[in-house]
C-alpha cells in the first residue's frame, strides 16, 4: 500500500527527485503559457482583422488544434518536429543530424495547444471594451499605438485574467502528457520511481497531491490578481 518511507529526502527516498520534478512541471507550464499568450496575441489579432485570409488561417489553426487530442499534437511535434527542423536546416546548407531537446519540444507543443484557448480569451476580452473608448481616444488625437498601449492593453489584461486563469489550469494539467517526450516532470518521475520500487500506488498518489498543490495555489494566485486588478471596479 502507501509507503511513506519511500518519499523521504536524500538517497533513501524519492522526495527530492519529486520536488525537482514538480519544479520542472512548473517551469514548463510557465514557459508554455508565456509562449501560448505570445502566439495568442497574433491569433486573436488575426481573428479581429478585416482580412479574410488572416481570419481563415487563425480559425483553421484554432479549430484543428482544439479538435484533435492533445496527445496527438504532442506526438506529432515530438516525432515529426526534428525531421522538420532538419529539413529547414538543409535549406540553409546544414546536412547533419539535428534534434531539439525535450524541454524545447515540450514547451512548443504545450504552447501551441495553450495558445488556441488563450486566443479566444484575449479576443473576448478585446470585444468587451466598448467601441466608444477607442473613438474617444481617436478624437483626443492619440495615435494607434498609443490607443493600443494606453487604452486597450490595460483593460484587455484586466478582463482576460479570469479566462487566462482557466487556461493556466488546463495548461498545467496538459504538461502531464509531455512525459512521453522523456522530460523528467512529475509523471515521468512517477513512472521511474514506480518501476524501481514496484509500488505504483505510492508514487501516483504523490503525483496527484503535487498536481493538486499546484492547481490550488495557482488558482489562489489568480484570485489575488483578479482582486488586485479589479480594485475600484466594485
Amino acid at each position, binding site marked *: 500500500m502507501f509507503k511513506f518511507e519511500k518519499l523521504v529526502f536524500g538517497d533513501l527516498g524519492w522526495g527530492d527527485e519529486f520536488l525537482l520534478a514538480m519544479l520542472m512541471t512548473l517551469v514548463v507550464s510557465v514557459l508554455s503559457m508565456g509562449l501560448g499568450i505570445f502566439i495568442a496575441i497574433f491569433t486573436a489579432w488575426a481573428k479581429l482583422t478585416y482580412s479574410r485570409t488572416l481570419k481563415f488561417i487563425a480559425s483553421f489553426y484554432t479549430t484543428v488544434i482544439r479538435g484533435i*487530442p492533445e*496527445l*496527438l499534437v504532442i506526438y506529432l511535434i515530438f516525432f515529426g518536429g526534428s525531421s522538420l527542423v532538419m529539413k529547414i536546416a538543409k535549406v540553409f546548407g546544414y546536412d547533419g543530424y539535428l534534434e531539439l531537446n525535450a524541454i524545447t519540444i515540450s514547451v512548443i507543443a504545450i504552447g501551441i495547444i495553450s495558445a488556441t484557448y488563450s486566443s479566444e480569451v484575449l479576443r473576448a476580452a478585446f470585444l468587451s471594451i466598448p467601441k466608444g473608448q477607442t473613438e474617444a481616444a481617436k478624437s483626443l488625437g492619440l495615435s494607434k499605438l498609443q490607443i493600443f498601449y494606453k487604452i486597450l492593453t490595460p483593460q484587455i489584461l484586466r478582463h482576460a485574467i479570469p479566462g487566462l486563469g482557466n487556461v493556466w489550469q488546463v495548461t498545467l494539467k496538459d504538461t502531464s*502528457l509531455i512525459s512521453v517526450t522523456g522530460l523528467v516532470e512529475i509523471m515521468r518521475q512517477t513512472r521511474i520511481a514506480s518501476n524501481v520500487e514496484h509500488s505504483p*500506488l505510492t508514487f501516483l498518489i504523490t503525483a*496527484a497531491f503535487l498536481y493538486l498543490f499546484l492547481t*490550488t495555489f495557482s488558482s489562489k494566485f489568480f484570485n489575488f490578481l483578479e482582486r488586485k486588478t479589479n480594485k475600484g471596479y466594485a
Partner: protein
Amino acid sequence: MFFNISSYITETLIYKNFILIFSALDETLLLLLISLPLGFVLSLIFALGRISKNTLISRAVASYIFTIRGTPLLVQIYLIYFGLGSVKAIRESILWALLKEPFWCGVLALTINTVAYGAEIFRGGIQSVTKGQIESGQALGFSKIKLYRRIVFPIALRQVLPTYGNELILMVKATSLVSLTTYMEMTGIARKIMAKTFAPVEAFVAAGILYLFLNFLMVQLVKYLEWKYNPHLRLNN
C-alpha cells in the same frame, strides 16, 4: 485521368494509415458509448448532491469535484490501471475481472473524470432555474420528484447544453489517453503504425483527421439538440 488520381491517392501512406486507423474507430466509440451516458446520469445525481442541504453530502461531493478537477486525467487513468492493480486485495476481489482489462479501466477513469466536470455544469444549470418557476410548481401541488422531472431538469438541461457540449468534445479528445494503458484505440494504432513505418507525420495526421471528424459530428449533434430543445432561440423558423 480520374482513375489515375484515385489510384495515386490509394497508394499514399497516409491513405493506408487512414484505413488502418479507421478500423480502430469502434474501439474509441465503445469507450464513449459507455462512459458518456453513465457520466451524464451520474453527473445529474452528483449535481443534486452538490446542492443538497445535507452538508455531509454536499461537502463530500465538493471535495470529490475539487480532487478530480485539480489532477490531470492521465494521473487518474494510471491510478486506476497501475495503482489499483498493484493492491493485492483488489487483485483477489471480484472487481479484478473488470480492472485487469485496460478497456474497463479507461471507461472507469473517463466516467469519474467527466462526472466531476459535468456535476459542476449541471449545478450551475439547476441553480439558474428561477425561484418563481419552482414556487409555481409547488403551488400547483407538484411532488418534489415531479418538480425536478417536469420543471427543474428540463429548464436546467436546456440552459447548459452548450457548456455540456464542450465537455463532450473534451471527452472525445480524452479517449486518446486510454491508449497509454495498452488499449489499442485510434491513437494506439497510430503509434503502432509510426513504430512500423518510421513516418510519424503521416500516422498522426491520419489519426488527427479522424478525431476532427468525430468532433465535427459531436458539434453537429449538440447543435441539433440545441435547435430542437430551444425552439424559442431559433433565428429563423
